[in-house]
C-alpha cells in the first residue's frame, strides 16, 4: 500500500469515528432520546435532554474540530505530508 493510501485510510477512519460522536451527541442524545433524557437533571439545573440540545452539543462540536486538527497535524508529520 502506498503512503498516500494508508494516510488516506487513517484519515477516513478518524473522520468516521468523529462523525459517529457528532451524530450520537446531536441526533441520538439531543433529539431521538431527548424525551427520556429529560427525566434526568444532572447539574441540579435544566433537564439533560434539553441541556444537550441547547448547549452541550455545541461544546462537543468545538472539541471535535480542534481534536481533528491536532490529530491530522500528527498524521501529516508521520507521513511527511506537512504543507
Amino acid at each position, binding site marked *: 500500500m502506498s503512503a498516500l493510501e494508508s494516510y488516506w485510510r487513517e484519515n477516513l477512519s478518524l473522520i468516521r469515528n468523529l*462523525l459517529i460522536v457528532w451524530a450520537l451527541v446531536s441526533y441520538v442524545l439531543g433529539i431521538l432520546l431527548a*424525551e427520556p433524557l429529560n427525566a434526568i437533571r444532572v447539574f441540579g439545573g435544566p433537564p439533560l435532554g434539553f441541556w444537550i440540545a441547547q*448547549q452541550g452539543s455545541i461544546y462537543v462540536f468545538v472539541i471535535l*474540530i480542534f481534536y*481533528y486538527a491536532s490529530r491530522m497535524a500528527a498524521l*501529516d508529520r508521520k507521513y511527511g505530508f506537512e504543507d
Partner: protein
Amino acid sequence: MSAEVWTWIIVLLTFALYLGIGYWARVRETTGFYVAGRGVPPVANGAATAADWMSGASFISMAGLISFLGFDGAVYLMGWTGGYVLLALLLAPYLRKYGKFTVPEFVGDRYYSNVARVVAVISALFVSFVYVVPQLRGVGIVLSRYLGVDVATGVWAAVLVTAFIAVIGGMKGITWTQVAQYTVLIIAYLITGVALSNLLTGNPIPQLAFTFSDFAVRLSQLQVELGLNEYVKPFQNLSQLNVFLITLTLMVGTAGLPHVIIRFYTVPKASDARWSAGWALLFIALLYTTAPAVAVFSKYNLLNTLANKPVEEVQQIDWVQKWSKTGLLKLEDKNGDGIYQITASRDTNEITIDRDIIVLSTPEVAKLSPIVVGLVAAGGLAAALSTAAGLLIVMASAISHDLYTRIINPQASETTKLTIARVVILLVTILAAPFGINPPAFIAQLVAFAFGLAASTFFPAIILGIFDRRMNTQGAVAGMLVGLIFTATYIVGTNYLGWPRFLFGISPEGIGTVGMLLNFLVAYLVSRATPPPPVEIQKLVDEIRVPKGAGQAAEH
C-alpha cells in the same frame, strides 16, 4: 447623554472604522481581491468567518426565536453550529489544498464540465442574493429603531458602506473589517448577556448560570401555570421528524454555503484551514451558547414582570412604556379586569411580545448604561454588514471569475477581471436595495430555500468530488439537478401553490436533507453506469487529499 446620542456616536465611529480598514486594505490584483492574498492567519480567519456567518438575524432575532420555540429552538442552535464539524472534517482542508478562487470553480474543474460550472454559478448567485436581502433590511431596521431614520435611508447606508469596502478592498478588505465587526458584535452581545445573567442569578457567566441554575425549569413551570407550553419539553412546536430533518438541513446547508466555504481559501495552508474552522466555531459558540441563556432569562423576566400584574403597576415600568411605543410590545386589557393576562389563545391574550424584543430590550431591562444600548445597535449592524459583504464577494466572483473569465473570455486581463468584479458588486447591491426596503413577504421562506438548496446541490457535489475518485461529470450533474429540482419543487409547492406537506408532513425547511440524499443516490447510480473520469482528474483528487504542496498551488 441619552441613549440616542450614544448610539449615533458609536454607530458613526464603527462605520468610520470599517471604512478606514476597507481603504487601508485596498487591492489591485485578483489574488488579493478573491482570496485576500492567502495571507490571513487562522485565528483571524476564524473571527472573520464567525462574523461572516452570524447574520443580523443571529444577533437580533435568534435568542427571541429560541425563547418562543422552547426546546425546539435547538434546531437553530445545533443546526447552525454542527455544520462546522462537517466543514472542518469533510471540506475545508481539501478545498484549500485545491487552492483556487471559488466554489463553482472547484465544481467546474473537478467535473471537467462547463455545464457543472454553470449549475454551480446559478446556485451560488441565487443562494447569495436571497441571503443578502435580509441583511440589508436588518441594517435598515436597526438604524430606524435606534436612530429614527427611515428604513429606506438605513438600507442605502448599508449599501454604501458594504459596497465601498467590497469594491475597493475585495476579500482582503472584507476579511479585516469582519475581524473588527466580530469584535464589536461579540462585545455587545456578551455585555448584555453577562449583565442579565448577573442580575437574575448572581452568576455573571451566562453559560454557567444556564447550566447550574434551575431557571429553565422555573420558566417551564411558570409557562405551564400561565397555560402556555412546557419550555423544556421537546417537540411542542415541531414534530420529532421535523426537528431531526431541519437540524440536518441547517448543518449540511451551513457546510454548503459558498460564502462560508470561500473563507477557507484565504488561509496560507491546508492544515491552517482545519484550525481555522475550529476557531470559527469557538467564536460562533461564544454567541450561540449565550443565546439560549439570554432566551431563558429574558423570557422569565418578561413573563414574571408582566403576566397577571395590575395594569397601573406595569404601566409605570420605564422599558414597558418605551417598547410599547415601538409596537414591539403590545399590552391590552381586553376583559377590563385591571390585570394583564397572557394566554395561548389570540382572542383572550393581552400581552403580545415581538421576539426581537428579547435581545433589543435587554440593556434597559438589566438597567445598563445608555452606552450599552448604542453598543447593541452597533453589534446588530456589524453582524448584518459583515454577512452582506461576504455574500457580495461570492456573487462578484461567480460572475467575473467563473462566468466571464472561465467561460466567455479566458484571455481577459487582470484589470478587466477586477473591473467586472467591482461593477458586479455595485450592481448587485443596487439591485438588492429595493428588496431590502420593501421585502417580499416570503423572505424568511427564501432563507430556508437557500439552505435547502445549498444542502441539496453543493454539499454532495463537493463531498463526492473529494471522497469518490470514481465520480464523473454525468453523475455530479444528474445529482445536482435532481437535488435542485426536487427541493425547489417541494418548497415552492408547499409554500406557494397550496400543496399539502405530502412527504410525511416534512416542513419545507427540512426538505433539503431529502434532496441531499436523492442527490447522493442519483450521482452514485449515474456515475457507475457511465465511464470513469479521465486519469488527470483522478490524479487531481489524489493531489487534494494531502496537505503537502498547498503553498505551490497558491502560486498558480
